[in-house]
């Protein structure tokens, strides 16, 4: 009985859905997190009676056919790359990007990753690094004894060094953008890597050529909306239950057949 397997695909799809929703809720306080959504598509149809087939010698055609569908599949979990709310923290090295662009981070193996999480600190040598200690690109080293760290909307980092009355420009934090941000590959730790689907990384600077601007002393909150997640969760749970009911109904039908003759 096909209904059993069809309902099973429905249960599997809703299980994915609940997984995605629970990950969104778990990350509702993660800086720079972008919510995901499970997208579904119907499976191929068995055209038992094909619409448009000839019904008689007179050339009449069947106006509606008999199409039996095979269920549902999860086609992707696209990430919703909208701007998260900025929340002021007052931290010198907390930077939020307002608009397009990812921070570029160099990993220990020399490869680059991209993040929207601007929770930066300095390491023992004065370099600006992420919470994991990987340097933000291009690498900027803050000299010892410097004070008054300022990051402009273009990402220019300047400090006051002892013995100088004018601020010293140390460098400019870059941003990177992708034509298809949703195609980035999440690797955890708020980091993404580029993929063939995301397109090649395009490096640039903030507040120019369509890039967003940098906001020192702010962090970008997750773009998860709890109310919509909870209502999605309820819908997913009910959909799962209904598919389970179809399984038991199909089972009941089979049972009545097998009990027919003793």
């Amino acid at each position, binding site marked *: *009985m096909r*209904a059993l397997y*069809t*309902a099973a695909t*429905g249960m599997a*799809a809703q299980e994915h859905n609940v997984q995605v929703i629970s990950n969104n809720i778990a990350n509702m306080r993660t800086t720079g997190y972008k919510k995901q959504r499970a*997208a*579904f*598509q*119907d*499976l*191929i*149809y068995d055209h*038992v*009676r*094909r*619409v*448009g087939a000839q019904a008689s010698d007179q050339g009449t*055609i069947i*106006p*509606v*056919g*008999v*199409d*039996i*569908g*095979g*269920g*549902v599949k999860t*086609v*992707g979990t*696209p990430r*919703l790359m*909208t701007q998260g709310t900025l929340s002021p923290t007052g931290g010198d090295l907390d930077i939020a990007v307002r*608009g397009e662009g990812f921070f570029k981070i160099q990993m220990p193996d020399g490869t680059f990753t991209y993040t929207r999480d601007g929770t930066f600190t300095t390491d023992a040598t004065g370099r600006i690094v992420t919470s994991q200690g990987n340097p933000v690109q291009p690498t900027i080293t803050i000299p010892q004894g410097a004070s008054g760290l300022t990051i402009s909307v273009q990402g220019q980092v300047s400090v006051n060094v002892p013995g100088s009355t004018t601020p010293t420009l140390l460098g400019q934090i870059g941003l990177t953008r992708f*034509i*298809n941000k*949703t*195609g980035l590959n999440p690797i955890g730790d708020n980091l993404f890597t580029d993929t063939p*689907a995301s*397109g*090649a990384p*395009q490096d640039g600077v903030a507040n120019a*050529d*369509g890039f967003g601007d940098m906001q020192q002393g702010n962090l970008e909150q997750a773009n998860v909306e709890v109310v919509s997640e909870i209502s999605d969760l309820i*819908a997913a749970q*009910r*959909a799962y239950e*209904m*598919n389970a*009911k*179809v399984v038991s*109904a*199909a089972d*009941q*039908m089979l049972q*009545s*057949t097998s009990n*027919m*003759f003793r």
Partner: protein
Amino acid sequence: MENMLLIGLSRQMTLERQMDVVANNVANINTAGFKADKSLFQEYLMPVAHDDAFIGQDRRISYVQDRATFKDLSAGPTEQTKNPLDIAIDGNAFLVVQTPAGERYTRDGGLQINPQGQLVTASGNPVLGTGGPIVFQPTDKEINIAADGNVSVLEGTNRIDSLRGKLRLVSFAQAQRLIKDGGNLYAAGEGAAPAPDATAKVRQGYIEKSNVNAVTEMSRMIDVTRTYTQISAMLQQQGDMRRSAIEKLADVPA
């Protein structure tokens, strides 16, 4: 006397198929742009095996046959997602999708951008504008899709919108002749010709949910199960009746 078995069987076969349709609807209760299927049945009169000349007329036997599954093409509820690449269509129109097998039509407005900058569906097939695929430049931002399907962006640091194309919206005079092709796509069947639709409105930031009505599907499922069980019971009684007839009639007194 055997007819009853066969008639019951014909009903059970259609019920099984109806259950498959219900199962597919329920499985797709969260599929964006999905349209529910409904089953239609018809009587199939047995052309032979009757004779009206008998006293106590012999009636024609009618079987059940499933004639069609028709698509409930009513609009599903729209949900606000705030994603600039999610669109819902207000009206009867479909989006046109370029697939390797030819043009297909969809109501699923969960769109993406591929590495070439083309506007694509979730499975990566380009969504067609009035002048072919809609392509974005790497510096485009603030994608805006107007109600008439015009796609405009802010390119680079421009303050004025640049037009990137217009979504091609088509509707069908005979929409029931569309063939479900899987992957939320429809193929135009014989006699279904796409015509440009000027009345439909595109709503950006919304997505059209499945139009499957959970309550209806659940009650139909119960209905199907109960009917199936009743016919099973009826066939069983018929079998019992026949068995007792054979036992009694063949009971030769010793």
